[in-house]
């Protein structure tokens, strides 16, 4: 932990050597420490308290190092979270100077803190296993490496602008990541957006990841064009003329996650056409003729 810099005392060195000797014995099986505590340390602490920086003489990149503590003394008091410097520092308010992680780095989540608290309370053991901590809340999975939602749009910028101007729609980048795709917006002039306009979007079919077609003049025929947008994740057809029969055309949208059919004439049979879409998680159908019994993914009231 950040603090006065000084030479490590002899106590620290002796403990260090002892720690190495102990180390080989505990790594044989997956312990609670390995499953829960080590990942937290790696994620939040090791950058400053590891082999490279060792701020305040502290390393936390192994159980042994953690138990050795910092120059100022132990950071863990087995059985007593409240009396442990580690626990005290990670639970301080963000505004406190002594809070860890320091310098505005993200603080530990509630779940991470709870795991550390339980681990210390349970004796700060290197041997205890998951089953010894039934109350330990799961840690959020680290975010998966961002997957490309669509091909990079930047090389087609001029074409995108030309389509926007010709059709009176907007094709906006979803974010600054060029593989996050485009959002098709029509709210400015929904009356201009009809089946013919959708057909003309074919050159950017693979770039559209969200399509807001609410209150446009789109009909079933236009869904044939929409079906070519195979990277589509969200489709809003609120208050359009699409019908149950038209939804059958959406089968190629294997990546579709959200579909909004609010205030359309679609009924249960129409939603039946969507049964096989593997990623579809939610279908809104408020004001439509769909019942929630038709598909567990339907929200109709």
């Amino acid at each position, binding site marked *: 932990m950040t603090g006065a810099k000084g030479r490590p005392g002899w106590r620290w060195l002796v403990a260090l050597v002892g720690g190495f000797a102990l180390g080989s014995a505990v790594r044989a099986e997956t312990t609670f420490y390995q499953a829960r505590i080590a990942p937290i340390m790696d994620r939040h602490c090791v950058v400053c308290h590891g082999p490279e920086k060792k701020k305040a003489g502290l390393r936390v990149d192994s159980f042994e190092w953690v138990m050795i503590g910092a120059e100022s003394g132990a950071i863990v008091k087995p059985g007593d979270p409240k009396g442990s410097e580690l626990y005290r520092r990670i639970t301080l*308010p*963000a*505004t406190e100077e002594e809070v860890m992680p320091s310098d*505005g780095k*993200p603080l530990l*989540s*509630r779940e991470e803190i709870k795991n550390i608290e339980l681990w210390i309370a349970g004796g700060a053991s290197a041997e205890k296993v998951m089953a010894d901590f039934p109350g330990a809340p799961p840690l959020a999975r680290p975010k998966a490496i961002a997957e490309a939602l669509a091909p990079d749009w*930047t090389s087609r*910028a*001029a074409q*995108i*602008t030309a389509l*926007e*101007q010709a059709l009176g729609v*907007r*094709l*906006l*980048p*979803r*974010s*600054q*990541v*060029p593989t*996050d795709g485009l959002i098709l*917006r029509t*709210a*400015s*002039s929904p009356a201009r957006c009809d089946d013919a306009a959708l057909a003309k979007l074919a050159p950017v079919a693979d770039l559209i990841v969200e399509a*807001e077609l*609410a209150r446009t003049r789109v009909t079933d025929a236009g869904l044939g064009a929409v079906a070519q947008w195979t990277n589509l994740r969200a489709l*809003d057809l*609120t208050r359009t003329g699409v019908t149950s029969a038209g939804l059958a055309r959406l089968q190629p949208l294997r990546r579709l996650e*959200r579909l*909004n059919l*609010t205030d359309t004439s679609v009924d249960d049979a129409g939603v039946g056409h969507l049964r096989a879409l593997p990623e579809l998680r*939610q279908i*809104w159908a*408020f*004001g439509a003729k769909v019942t929630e019994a038709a598909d567990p993914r339907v*929200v*109709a*009231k």
Partner: protein
Amino acid sequence: MPPVPPDWLAPLDTLNAAFTRRQFFRRSGTGLGVAALASLLGERALAAGTPAAPPPPWSIAPKAKRAIYISLIGAPSQLDLFDYKPGLANRFKEDLKDYLAREGERLTGMTARQEKFPLAPSIFKFAQHGQSGAWISELLPWTARMADDLCIIRSMKTDAINHEPANQLMYTGTMQNGKPSLGSWLAYGLGSANQDLPAFVVLHAKHTSPFSNVQAISARLWGSAFLPGKHAGVSFRGSGDPVLYLNDAPGIPRELRRSMLDGIEALNRRSYDALGDPEIQTRTQQYEMAFRMQTSLPELADLGREPEATFQLYGEEARVRGTFASSALMARRLVERGVRFVQIFHRGWDQHGTLPRDLAQQCKDVDQACYGLVQDLKQRGLLDDTLVIWGGEFGRTVYCQGTLTETNYGRDHHPRCFSLWLAGAGIKGGTVYGETDDFSYNIVKDPVHIRDLHATILHLMGIDHERLSFKFQGLDQRLTGVLPAKVVTDILA
């Protein structure tokens, strides 16, 4: 270089010429912004054939495409609504004078000279609601029904102790005048999704109690300050036409109006080319917006197509223009049509005295319609990408202002903690975040400063609060300023 004024200029224009240096730099500043924002500006501002601009550097993939901020001006009492303190019941009238002296908190002039600071427990009943078991008072029965949609933050804190600075901090990011509002920053960063409606609309809802202590508010809270004026909130009227003078005057057909506007635009463009003042663009944009709203507003304001069920959901008073319920319904209709940010101001939440009577009526004004709004958005599939925020500008004291009786009390301003809730896009519903001490006086866990709230709102809307900036007075100005601000990741879904 600034253009040299032609010699036919009148003396006044010579004075104007003195401004051109400043305007030159302003133009440079906005010029960059314009390049980055090209995709977000009104189509008319886009020269034909401009290649699509890359998204601006502050953009991150958004969870929310739009937001509705329900601003309760005056500061609702956290002690009587969300921050349940059962332990206080036995401490009725306990004098907190010594406690306050130890805390060293500055008190407002309204209570600083009180002899005693008697503890006033809430007289309202609390119960746990939803799967989250959130404690919510009997004053908000409808809100309680949607407990699992809400993230209630009980550990909000502010730096201000009086309304105007507190409101400015809450809605513009600083207590000083002259900073753009939250909605203006969003409009600046994200632009409009519907060029026929403003990106940022402000609605003023009436409070019904004749007794409520009402604070005046001004356009500072939704102004654009140094951002180009077109990003200011457009305030809709609560009665009559939402925007005045939109209709064509008798005898002026729409085509004539159009050609008049085109003429004005040509003149303004010449001024703009000469001076580069972005406010000229704003003026042009406002004429155009007004022209387009002639057709978009009547459709927007026509509640005739709303089914009966809508009025059952929001409450019958939603039929009456200007009520909170009708404002909430209007907010849904606005976001449905692509408006980015709708802010509803409801005043009268400043219960220094007679709190039980007045707070109850204030809650009655908003409770059902808040429920209606969130449920309506959910039904229509809009809640997933619409953020709803509900709250005031600070909290209220645990000690009584004025005379404390078994049935009556008042509460003074309290900056150290207050409660608000968020729902919708990217928010972990059914969450209660943060804790205060036994007196709801200090935060003991997970403090959330207003800057943190702003950072979180921007984050949800797809904006990195540290990178959305605007050069003014030599500084890269930001909504969250230079003091530390963090996204409250614990409340994100």
